[in-house]
């Protein structure tokens, strides 16, 4: 489920800006790190979740305002490379200003593990699952049922038309970064008790979320949902039935197979711009 959130984070930015944001994993890491710091000062979990998500949204807005929208004569490729630079920068800043250690975070629920029909797993998986379900639902509702959400979709479908109808495209892109930062941080903060927090924890999540996007079809949110679930389930199955040391391989194997068979992804958005 966590990959669904990462994949949606990628999609939100990609669909409005056509930029693949390789700092998406770092949004997760920042969410986890900020939560860890706040919890150290005994701030309640709910509040630290909220604060870390808002702070990361603001970081995302800054990235868009000062780096992305100010880059002169930018094309998509140079902006994508820029996001790789940003990702390295964020990791560096955290490694220096916090540290490079892995920090545990206690489970959100009062009990550590649950048993279900003979299987025992961390109670945090329930939290991750619920968070993801709620976020996915809210995000879909926003896009499909609110005027603001439709405007955001309009920008991704036909940017020129949107601006001819008075939509401030730059503002919509900034909003996309903010939403993506918020979703990313919440994902990072809820997965933290399972994965620990560390300055480079975002790398693998980012890459696997990227794989989920590719599998589902970049820019397609249903694709993100399905792609994220496929990668997540395949990973747990391979850990269970083969060996957990091959776990990381599976996501990329699936991605490569999909790229071979259907390069545009399972849910490739049918020529969105026929204009």
């Amino acid at each position, binding site marked *: 489920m966590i990959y669904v959130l990462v994949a949606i984070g990628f999609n939100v930015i990609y669909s409005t800006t056509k930029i693949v944001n390789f700092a998406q994993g770092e949004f997760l890491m920042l969410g986890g790190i900020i939560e860890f710091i706040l919890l150290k000062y005994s701030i309640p979990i709910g509040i630290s979740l909220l604060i870390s998500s808002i702070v990361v949204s603001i970081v995302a807005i800054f990235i868009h305002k000062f780096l992305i929208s100010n880059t002169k004569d930018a094309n998509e490729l140079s902006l994508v490379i820029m996001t790789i630079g940003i990702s390295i920068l964020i990791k560096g800043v955290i490694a220096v200003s916090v540290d490079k250690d892995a920090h545990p975070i206690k489970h959100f629920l009062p009990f550590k593990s649950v048993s279900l029909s003979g299987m025992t797993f961390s109670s945090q998986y329930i939290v991750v699952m619920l968070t993801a379900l709620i976020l996915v639902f809210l995000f879909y509702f926003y896009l499909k049922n609110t005027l603001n959400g*439709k405007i955001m979709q309009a920008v991704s479908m036909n940017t*020129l038309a949107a601006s001819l109808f*008075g939509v401030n495209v730059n503002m919509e892109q900034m909003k996309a970064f903010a939403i993506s930062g918020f979703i990313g941080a919440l994902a990072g903060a809820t997965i933290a008790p399972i994965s620990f927090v560390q300055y480079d924890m975002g790398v693998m999540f980012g890459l696997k979320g990227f794989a989920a996007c590719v599998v589902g079809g970049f820019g397609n949110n249903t694709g993100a949902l399905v792609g994220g679930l496929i990668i997540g389930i395949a990973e747990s199955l391979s850990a269970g039935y083969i060996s957990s040391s091959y776990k990381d391989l599976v996501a990329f194997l699936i991605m490569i197979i999909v790229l071979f068979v259907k390069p545009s992804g399972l849910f490739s958005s049918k020529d969105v711009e026929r204009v």
Partner: protein
Amino acid sequence: MLRVKNLSVYYDKAIALDNVSIDVEEGEAVCVLGANGAGKTTLLNAIFNVIPKKGKIFFNDIDITDLATHKIVKMGIVYVPDKRTIFNELSVYENLEISAWEIIKNKGKKHFVKNLDAVFEHFTNLEEKQSLKAGYLSGGEQQMLSIAQGLIRAPKMFVMDEPTAGLSPKLMNAVFDIVYFMKKQGITVLIVEQNVNKTLMATDRAYIMEVGKIKESGNSKDFLQSDSIKKAYLGG
């Protein structure tokens, strides 16, 4: 109402628009005619700041030269470019909702529905297909939707680029009917077209362009009668 002064546009180093000036007075319908590649689309794109340019542009005496596209249209001008302004994956209704989003936000849903009903009077076909995805409309219907999206914004001025391109004679007449309707409503019109006779009949004044320059300007009626001008610039 719209004053364009000494507008020039360069693509790389090639000049596409060379010191072009045009005026459109309030309530007038003005057309820009010219052969393919004359620079008509370039002129409109430059006015709406879709492409970089040199020169000055005023709307109601306000300098809009450096205003962002989304701010220019907020002043009450609609631009329907030669590319369609529809959102394929959204329904016809949602397409109209988005083009009129400021009306919904500022004046309320009721006002929007009122405008919608008024627009549907001209586009009965779209009314029937409200819930269909815009991408599934026929080419002609998509073109009509683009115009409807502009009309529902209740503009003071309506600018359009070859609205009849690729339309059947019947739909073509429907487009010109809308031009006549806009004139009656007091909406100022600036139209770029290939359909010389019908356009000259529907408009008050005309500019004729050739390779980036305005070659002639005058009353549409006079051009309609002048075979020499039609032969020289408009292919008969």
